[in-house]
């Protein structure tokens, strides 16, 4: 077993431990020993129901969302060769949020709650299609990033417009709470809705490691190594849109994980783009699971939102990492 495999195993074990902790911690503390029994038994005493129907979907969703954010952040940074890239940068997060806000504003959410994720994924898809159209005509990375920033700004502007026009304070509150991101009260239905898109996205992104490595020495050199650059970009952009769009759809926007996690992996494990993908996925899952435990700390008033926790920890961490690594990134 190589050093890399041992590191992957260690990260996975830590994530499983964090997930068990998350399952046991809450309004009713359930001893860890009872958790496994509750998951695999079919009895319906209170503990079984709390674990299986309330906490398990939340933990699974946290792992799926965290892994999606970490993985697509790593892949986007690789393909755009920009350490500041993440799903937020190319506009996927903001347009997914716009979809969700529209669903709330138009009252569709009260007709059928699933309209929120459905419209969020539609927003992510429209943006992705547009980005693909642009990147097929102009392969420049800078163009892709600038277009992404433009789309993000536009989506945020429309969200602000909707809030501005919104008649009731209640729906503004709903929108804001949704945008802050959370795993609270998620059910198996949310997991089932997001899972296929998330898995499809992972499949698209996971096989791109070799191409991303080749891109380290520039697009033209990579192309002369037999890498299909257009296909590589499509896989990363579509894969990120599917997995992050689905994640944002069910959990709201959760920032900084996609940005910071790949940097942590570069410091801890490897600089090689192909060796950043899988560790970023696992570390992303671990970070979200731990952050979700933090949201359940007793606070006065409204419970903490997940997106707030990740941003509060992520932003300073990001600044620290940039200051520490700027010499080698030049």
């Amino acid at each position, binding site marked *: 077993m190589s050093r890399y495999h041992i590191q992957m195993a260690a990260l996975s074990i830590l994530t499983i431990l964090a997930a068990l902790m998350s399952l046991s911690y809450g309004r009713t503390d359930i001893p860890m020993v009872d958790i496994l029994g509750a998951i695999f038994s079919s009895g319906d005493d209170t503990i079984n129901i709390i674990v299986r129907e309330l906490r398990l979907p939340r933990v699974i969703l946290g792992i799926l969302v965290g892994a999606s954010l970490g993985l697509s952040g790593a892949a986007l940074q690789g393909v755009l*060769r920009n350490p500041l890239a993440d799903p937020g940068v190319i506009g996927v997060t903001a347009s997914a949020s716009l979809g969700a806000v529209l669903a709330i504003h138009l009252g569709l959410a009260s007709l059928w709650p699933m309209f929120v994720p459905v419209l969020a994924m539609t927003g992510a898809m429209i943006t992705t299609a547009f980005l693909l159209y642009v990147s097929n005509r102009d392969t420049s990375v800078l163009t892709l990033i600038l277009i992404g920033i433009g789309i993000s700004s536009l989506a945020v502007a429309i969200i602000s417009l909707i809030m501005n026009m919104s008649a009731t304070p209640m729906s503004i509150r709903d929108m804001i709470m949704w945008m802050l991101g959370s795993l609270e009260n998620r059910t198996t239905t949310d997991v089932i809705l997001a899972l296929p898109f998330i898995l499809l996205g992972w499949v698209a992104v996971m*096989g*791109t*490691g*070799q*191409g991303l*490595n*080749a*891109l*380290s*020495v*520039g697009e*033209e*050199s990579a*192309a*002369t*190594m*037999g*890498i*299909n650059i257009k296909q590589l970009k499509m896989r990363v952009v579509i894969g990120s849109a599917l997995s992050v769009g689905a994640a944002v759809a069910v959990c709201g926007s959760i920032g900084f994980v996609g940005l910071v996690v790949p940097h942590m992996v570069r410091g801890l494990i490897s*600089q*090689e*783009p192909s060796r950043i993908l899988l560790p970023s996925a696992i570390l992303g899952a671990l970070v979200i699971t731990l952050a979700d435990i933090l949201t359940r700390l007793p606070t006065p008033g409204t419970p903490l939102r997940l997106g707030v926790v990740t941003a509060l920890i992520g932003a300073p961490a990001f600044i620290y990492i940039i200051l520490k690594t700027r010499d*080698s*990134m*030049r």
Partner: protein
Amino acid sequence: MTSLIAEGISLNIKTARILDDVSLRVKSGEIIGLIGPNGAGKSSLLKCILGLNAPTSGQVMLDGIDINNMDLKERARQMAYAAQGAPAHWPLTALSTVNLGRVPHLSPWQEMSAEDKLAVADAMELADCTHLRGRSITTLSGGERARVMLARVMATGAPFILADEPVASLDPAHQLQVMDILRGHAHGGGACLVVLHDLSLAQRYCDRLALMDGGKMIAQGATSSILSDGYLADVFGIKVSRWENSGQSFIAPHKLNEHTKNQT
């Protein structure tokens, strides 16, 4: 005998004619120098041959097969490219960078075999960068980085090597070393097409020269016939001094008009 043939290549970018009906043939066993002033279209021709630019008309044949009909990785196993300037976007180690030379031989999930690792070690030895293997490429000097990039190209084991100004950032000793490597590769059964600005190196190391200007192929042939006073004056606007030293020919350029001024 393997051959790489560019036939009637024209390239328009918007309304500009970058390449105008250029043909070139590279056979195994020879090293060809591609010379010409800045903007002559040398790099564009290289990129058309590599399939990076799609020519407006004309075709590139590798062993009788149109390169557009070849599998990308198969093509990459036949032709390797040493780009100008050698960018590096992540602080990879020199070893990881040279490992990239084996990408054309591996499927996306495949790990490197002992054979791949041997090819990488040999190429690093050849390009004199084995001692840099653990260093991050972003901390290397321009010359060290150029040698690491050459090692990456050599590690592919491709018969055809296309190099765009491979000696541009190197000190004199390493310039000679890189040219020795490229000539050794050609004379060992491979073939090289090298963009060069140093006419002395072109004369000493190349078997044939191809002279370009304004997107056109002006002339191809033996080094002595291409480096004639007439071509150098017409295309480069220079005059040269020539001398021999222990059987090697050297040339050094002067401005053409300095002399014409003196004469009039």
